[in-house]
């Protein structure tokens, strides 16, 4: 099965790659360019047409500061119902919450105790910022220097932020365990599983 994945950034893409390739083992995955959520919004009607006539499309975006997915969809001017082949998933509030939800895996990656991680990551309003704060408190130099921007720098991420986190997602992330701590992830995994049927 040919499945297209449209994500706003490399991390979202890796998350979908991991979940979709597990759910649909023989799927041929194709990725659109990661160019932020404005790009996804612009191309949304094209994705809907493709999903209706050609192949399934999985679109993943961050909720960011919208109160709920419905508000975001209204802002994107998305008309319901969506075609059957179009999966539109929204991470609450950002896809980083889904990584934080794998408490054991994430605490091991960052070298920090599990108690430091939020119990319900979906309720964290700025998970990227939390990830960076956690990195600063890590005992691992590679995490401190790679994930967080250098002290004083006018930058929002370290140079290896995407590399370290996407490697984690592709190789170590236990998203089944993470589903127990994140409703939005559990719903996404459930919907993607239906894609195989």
């Amino acid at each position, binding site marked *: 099965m040919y499945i297209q994945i449209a994500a706003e950034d490399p991390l979202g893409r890796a998350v979908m790659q991991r979940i979709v390739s597990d759910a649909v083992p023989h799927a041929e995955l194709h990725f659109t360019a990661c160019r932020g959520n404005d790009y996804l919004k612009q191309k949304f009607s094209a994705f809907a047409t493709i999903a209706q006539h050609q192949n399934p499309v999985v679109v993943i975006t961050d909720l960011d500061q919208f109160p709920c997915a419905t508000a975001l969809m209204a802002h994107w001017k998305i008309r319901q119902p969506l075609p059957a082949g179009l999966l539109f998933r929204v991470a609450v509030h950002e896809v980083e919450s889904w990584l934080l939800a794998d408490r054991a895996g994430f605490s091991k990656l960052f070298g920090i105790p599990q108690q430091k991680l939020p119990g319900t990551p979906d309720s964290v309003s700025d998970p*990227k910022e939390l990830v960076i704060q956690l990195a600063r408190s890590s005992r691992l130099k590679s995490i401190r220097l790679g994930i967080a*921007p*250098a002290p004083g*720098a*006018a*930058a*929002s991420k370290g*140079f*290896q*932020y995407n590399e370290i986190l996407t490697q984690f997602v592709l190789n170590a992330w236990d998203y089944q365990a993470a589903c127990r701590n994140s409703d939005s992830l559990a719903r996404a995994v459930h919907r993607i599983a239906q894609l195989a049927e």
Partner: protein
Amino acid sequence: MYLTHVQLKNWRNFKQTAPVNLRDKVYLLGANAVGKSNFLDVFRFLRDITKESGGGIQRAVSERGGMKMLRCLHARNDSEVSIEVGLSESLDAPEKWRYHLAFKGEGKDSQRVLVTAEQVLLHGQSRPVLSRPDAGDKRDPERLTQTHIEQINTNTNFREVATFFQSVTYLHLVPQLLKYGNRIGGHQLEDDPFGQGFLDKVACAPERVRNSRLKKIQKVLAHAIPQFSDLKFELDKGGKPHLLGRYEHYRPHAGWTREEHFSDGTLRLISLLWLLLDGESLLLLEEPELSLDDKIVSQIPNLLHKAEMAGKRKPRQTFISTHSYALLNNESIDARGILWLKPTSEGTEIRTPSEHELAQIRAGLTPADVFLPKVAARLNDQQLSFI
């Protein structure tokens, strides 16, 4: 050593700039012809003055077409050109050295340049290490045709500054010159700004260093260039150095291809990576994005960062002029290093980011989001069509 600040007067497009603070990575943005290359040329000029073979201010100025070409067209009355830079051991340490040079044409049909001021200050010393014109210059005005920094006898007390300027590296590799240099009888400029002699540079590195660098470069190429598998160095029968690459899509025993068959992008990427692994001195890169795929371009800031992490070296101060959205659309670039050039009726201004702009970047926008719209040429597609 790092350059901590620079201030220019009457240097080409720049009539008078405020002191500009510099970081370890400086990204230079601006529309075409506002002076990005001219800004980089300040540091090449300082290198040309101090270089061991045939340096000196007279030649450095005449190679640039003389004072007429050098001095700012906006300067109507004041014809003096002035450059001041600060140097320190690390970027957050107090400035160690300050070097100031001012000069103007002698006038009277003479093509000569006269030094009007040359000063060296050292942190912690109340008296300047050098302050010209001095009594000697008054006795013998001919001395003003040379700077003290260009002479070993007179720069003893601030040799460190001269050595720093000497080691500045500039590269704007033109792949065609490297590939076809022999056939077009390409005359190679001193200091090889266009990379014609790049292979000789590779050949001159000690074998162990060369092999280890090429191995690292090969690793990057394997990711960046589809089907690229191997890279090696070889001298041909005539003793000429060559780089050879192997691609998987050729027949398995198809053998190696020489650099003249490499794509422009491959050559530029190889030379860029080599430079990043080579030396600790100030590096000036002119539009490194040329002929490279956007995906690779977007990784250039990360490559700069990685080269330092791997070598456990001090960060190499690098100035990069660029137009590339892909390169600047990076949340990890320290935006304190952004300089954007703004043309005004009184010459080009060098702008540094405001606190407000830095806050936008810290909140997650990228330099591409914040600064490119400000520097873009003010025209739409229709204005560019002329047919």
